[in-house]
């Protein structure tokens, strides 16, 4: 791999720009899609690899190529810069999620409480979520326990294509939340997208244990294993 190819790949990653690396086997000649003009068969295969986020071999015009897509990391938006969120951030980063923590309360979303690979946003949750535009590669979890903060976030989340929506709170808390979201005009099917009580049932008690159960559930959703 040449320094130029490596720099282009890393710049694309930093900019969250999808790019496919094509390597001819066995001589190792490399091309980038969509940066370079490619024969139609290769360009199509590269496009498919990006769409499916799947690497694999392809034969085109008698040549063997290996196509490796580099897609932007899926995102996790956490509403509530609370204790569980502090435990969640490093675990999310470890499984390859780009994490944003949203909390308008001044004392919570601080650099001191959140070191490392995380974006902190102090806007109101609905404004923040609208600006972040959750898509098919976004998971959203609300942790504030406060309807004033969680509900506006869930309202926006339910109108999005987010692949995972989770909300902290007991069954009783959730029943009241369902009533409020119904009043906001959300149907039963939409509301059933919300995972609550949040996380896989591993008997989690401490903040890191709850964070682990949430991350496990997000991974299961991402991998199509969530019942």
């Amino acid at each position, binding site marked *: *791999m040449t320094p130029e190819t490596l720099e282009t790949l890393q710049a694309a*990653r930093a900019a969250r720009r999808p790019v496919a690396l094509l390597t001819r*086997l066995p001589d190792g000649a490399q091309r980038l899609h969509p940066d370079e003009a490619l024969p139609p068969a290769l360009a199509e295969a590269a496009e498919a690899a990006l769409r499916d986020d799947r*690497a694999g071999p392809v034969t085109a015009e008698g040549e063997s190529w*290996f196509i490796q897509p*580099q897609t932007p990391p899926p995102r996790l938006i956490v509403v509530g810069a609370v204790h569980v969120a502090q435990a969640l951030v490093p675990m999310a980063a470890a499984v*390859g999620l780009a994490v944003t923590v949203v909390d308008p309360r001044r004392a919570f979303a601080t650099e001191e409480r959140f070191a490392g690979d995380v974006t902190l946003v102090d806007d109101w949750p609905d404004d923040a979520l609208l600006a972040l535009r959750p898509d098919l590669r976004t998971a959203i979890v609300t942790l504030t326990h406060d309807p004033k903060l969680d509900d506006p976030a869930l309202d926006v989340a339910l109108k999005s294509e987010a692949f995972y929506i989770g909300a902290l709170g007991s069954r009783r808390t959730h029943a009241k939340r369902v009533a409020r979201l119904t009043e906001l005009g959300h149907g039963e099917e939409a509301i059933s997208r919300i995972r609550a009580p949040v996380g896989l049932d591993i008997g989690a008690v401490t903040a890191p244990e709850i964070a682990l159960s949430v991350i496990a559930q997000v991974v299961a959703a*991402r991998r199509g294993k969530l019942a």
Partner: protein
Amino acid sequence: MSGSEDILETARAWRAEGERVALATVVETWGSSPRPAGSRLAVTGTGRLAGSVSGGCIEGAVADVAKQVMETGAPQLLDFGITDERAWEVGLACGGKLKVFVEPLT
């Protein structure tokens, strides 16, 4: 979540430190291979490793080839778990088969 660890960034950092670096990439798998196509292992001339191309069964053999690749500058395409007479042939305990492409980071 594929490629969650940024092996290329590690490789770039090692290169910037003046290390010689080779990159190994799983390009095809059959059966029960532990790491999917696209999985990467970076290897340096001084023997540092980042990432993986298997569950640990073939990393040693790949690192040996990586050193040759750094010496010669010529990439190599390796078959593992397939019966042949090559010196670097090692078995996969899991019974899987895979192809690994090893290239120098120039």
